[in-house]
């Protein structure tokens, strides 16, 4: 790799579960721009078992598009030699299976919940939970708890056992009982197969846990996830799990050794790269009373990254729009998806379509029915990831005062194949409004070229280049949305807005409860809004409080979503379908 200050061209390989996306970023005049992109099938599984094959195919397509030579003598040319090669090559990946974790702890609502939240910070799946509190399994009736726990560890053979429990200075015996069972289960596996143990429980027990398990397997100690009854401390455990993921999964991915030979830069999980972009957006906006949020709806996972008061948070939800979606439906029920479909669809037909999305994950919706199903899945993924993520945030000044409400967020970045390829921008925006239920005033940005993660990868090497590439049009604004909180009757006036356009034009409008309304404000155009909410509605400035704000236009202009929070759908199926259809029309979907 060239020295950081000399880097003028970067090739980013983003290896997803379905597609490998290659992006070439280069200096053009005084800024950096995405010059070209190419896709190939990800080749981490049979019959290839080698990630580098997909990367090479995408490089060849990129060479055909750009006319540049990037690959020569069996490797990507780094550093650049004249017009051949690039200055740096970065690999980010979400293609490999997540870390398999068994969570062991004491109280479901305390340490176990904290352990679960810590695990959502990276690509990890909790395969089983060991606790004195019953899981309702049949074997618990005939076996002792230790036997069940040891057996679970042995049979599941996870990558990591995350052992939590006990506040610092608190419970000892129950935690040690769990540790003993984990030791027993691990000792029944071959030495190379034994799971590592990450201990993040009562700090007083660290020497005992290390002594008990240290001879059997690799033990890592992290700060207690629940050090006192009313505090939670997830950071060190999340970091340790992320390191496990990189070591156990990313660095052992088939073909990664070849890519590593070409790159020489550390591999970055896609979720981390995405988080860097959201963090950058927060710092760019500089609003301490608001957070920045990004969602990346992928084929196998959904990532939510937020930054509040300069502190980033990442949540990786273990489902996306394709891989594993039938498992999600089995667990949560088909009705959760069906409620978002604006036309009559037999449950069996819906189920078949969801199965086929999983089996034929490369396809894009071709009929409106296929599109409604895909967007229904996206809505539920957004709602699920939000439910997982929100309890982990310390939102500070961005709070709207109610734990169930979204805090104030601006901007909202949306990314991922499930969202950015919707034929009409209104469909993407409505999906995000239904899925996230934002409140207050937010600009919604669409990662139309799916370049955000590549930008995040670049930010790790040359932050200025990443910032320049992002400013140079990687993101397209869908518009500014205003979502008031409050209750009213359908048709009640929620706010009056005076829109003062940059060219001197002026528009006075009213927004009504139960409606989504849009007014023109072109992409790149700015306007000043004088907003006066009626006394029962709050746009993030307090009930009935308004003021002047400068907003950015977008593909949909200015949008007021006055449907209320939480969003309620009619029980009656016909009424629900009519309402969904009307909302779609309102946003041009």
């Amino acid at each position, binding site marked *: 790799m060239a020295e950081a200050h000399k880097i003028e061209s970067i090739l980013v390989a983003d290896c997803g579960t379905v597609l490998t996306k290659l992006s070439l970023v280069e200096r053009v005049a005084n800024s950096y721009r995405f010059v070209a992109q190419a896709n*190939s099938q990800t080749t981490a*599984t049979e019959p290839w078992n080698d990630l580098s094959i997909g990367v090479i*195919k995408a490089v060849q397509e990129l060479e055909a598009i750009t006319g540049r030579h990037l690959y020569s003598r069996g490797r990507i040319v780094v550093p650049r030699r004249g017009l051949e090669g690039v200055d740096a090559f970065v690999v980010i990946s979400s293609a490999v299976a997540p870390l398999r974790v068994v969570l062991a702890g004491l109280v479901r609502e305390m340490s176990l919940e904290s352990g679960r939240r810590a695990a959502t910070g990276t690509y990890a799946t909790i395969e089983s939970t060991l606790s004195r509190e019953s899981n309702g399994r049949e074997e618990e009736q005939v076996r002792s708890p230790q*036997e069940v726990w040891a057996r679970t560890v042995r049979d599941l053979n996870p990558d990591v056992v995350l052992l939590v429990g006990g506040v610092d200075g608190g419970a000892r015996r129950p935690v040690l009982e769990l540790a003993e069972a984990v030791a027993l289960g691990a000792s029944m596996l071959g030495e190379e197969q034994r799971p590592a143990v990450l201990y993040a429980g009562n700090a007083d027990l660290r020497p005992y846990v290390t002594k008990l398990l240290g001879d059997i397997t690799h033990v890592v100690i992290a700060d207690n996830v629940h050090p006192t009854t009313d505090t939670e401390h997830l950071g060190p455990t999340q970091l340790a799990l992320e390191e496990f993921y990189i070591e156990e999964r990313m660095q052992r991915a088939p073909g990664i050794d070849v890519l590593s030979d070409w790159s020489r830069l550390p591999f970055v999980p896609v979720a981390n790269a995405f988080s860097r972009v959201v963090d950058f957006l927060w710092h760019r906006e500089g609003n301490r009373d608001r957070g920045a949020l990004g969602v990346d709806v992928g084929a196998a996972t959904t990532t939510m990254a937020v930054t509040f008061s300069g502190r980033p948070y990442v949540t990786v939800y273990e489902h996306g729009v394709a891989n594993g979606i039938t*498992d999600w439906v089995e667990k949560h029920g088909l009705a959760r998806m069906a409620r978002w479909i604006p036309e009559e669809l037999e449950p069996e037909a819906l189920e*078949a379509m969801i*199965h086929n999305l999983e089996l034929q994950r490369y396809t894009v*919706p*071709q009929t409106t029915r296929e599109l409604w199903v895909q967007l229904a899945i996206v809505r539920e993924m957004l709602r699920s990831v939000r439910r997982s993520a929100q309890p982990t945030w310390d939102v500070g000044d961005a709070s709207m005062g109610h734990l169930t409400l979204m805090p104030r967020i601006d901007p909202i970045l949306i990314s991922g194949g499930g969202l950015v390829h919707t034929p009409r921008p209104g469909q993407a925006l409505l999906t995000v409004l239904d899925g996230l239920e934002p409140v207050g005033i937010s600009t919604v940005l669409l990662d139309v070229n799916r370049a955000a993660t590549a930008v995040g990868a670049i930010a790790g090497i040359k932050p200025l280049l990443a910032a320049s590439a992002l400013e140079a049009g990687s993101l397209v604004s869908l518009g500014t949305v205003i979502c008031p909180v409050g209750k009213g009757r359908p048709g009640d006036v929620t706010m009056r807005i005076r829109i003062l356009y940059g060219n001197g034009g002026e528009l006075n409008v009213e927004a009504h409860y139960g409606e989504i309304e849009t007014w023109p404000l072109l992409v790149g155009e700015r306007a000043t809004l004088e907003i006066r909410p009626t006394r029962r509605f709050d746009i993030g400035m307090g009930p009935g409080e308004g003021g002047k704000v400068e907003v950015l236009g977008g593909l949909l202009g200015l949008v007021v979503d006055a449907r209320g929070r939480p969003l309620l759908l009619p029980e009656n199926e016909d009424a629900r379908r009519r309402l969904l259809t009307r909302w779609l029309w309102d946003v041009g979907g």
Partner: protein
Amino acid sequence: MFIPYTVANPLLTVRIPRLLPQRGQVLVRAGDSVAPSQIVAQAVRPADFRIVEVAQELDLSARNTPSCLKVERGQAIQEGEVLAARGGLTSRVCYSPLTGTVIGVGRGRLLLEAQAEVIRLAALVPGYVVESRDGSGVVVETVGALIQAFWGNGREGYGVLRMLVRDPRHPIRASHINASAQGTVLIGGSTVDEESIAQAIELQVRGMIVGSVLPSMIPRLRKTRFPVIATEGIGNLPMSMALFELLRSLDGREAAVSARIGDRWQPMRPYAVVPMPTHAAPKLNPDLPLKAGDRVRILGGEYRARSGTVSRLLEGLIQVETGARLPGIEIAFSESERVQVPQTNIERLL
């Protein structure tokens, strides 16, 4: 642009990975010739185990327990055998809950392990081992026809192919399955119903190949012991004509069917292989660019599951029902029937 593919080919060199569900022992070497039923690898499934709280059962302290033990570490034991006993007025006896071995003694407890179960993996197809993967399995190379499917019920087996229907739109009905179906792999057009499955089980059918399965049938099929594969996916879809014609041409030949689909992180394609008595066959090259004359199948929209040949690659974008504008392709189903579909929703048939 990336175009996925499905193999539906009458004669080619096929490489079949045969992998254990967990690490184990490979029993053959690269270059070995194997028969379908030959065991090529095996693994030991973790055995059941029990912790017996001897001290608790005998009402003794852990320190006093060893003198009451009737077994020692490493000793084989039978279910119901006495593990420990204390005499005196309050005599008590502790029995073994399983047949196996004592693998641990201490702290007033015994750790017992049952006899382990061995998982045996057969070659499934006749051929040669071309790759031996240390502890995980082998790759067997054979020559014959290969038909890949989208869904399978997780089972494996082999038998003689028997075409039951005349049209790819026709489902398998119980009335199609008579005594001559014993030991065969049945081929239907569209779907299969509950009654047909029951009939097939009774007549000891060895496998089933259909176009699709209804979602409501999935739990039932997962419990069925013979392999069932669906070439088009889930729903009520006819088998695409290209695959139907190929299977019809193979009627009466012996086939191996694998209905394993892996998991979400290691997906596998279910398949049927029909070995042929020849050694020379071409290898596939899925990397060639798509061109006129290539066989393709449609995976979305109103023509889903129909197969045809590429007439031409369209230069501009085509608009689909959703309003999206996508790179298009023209496909001929026959001399007179041509349609334009997005390239993203087709796959090549190799």
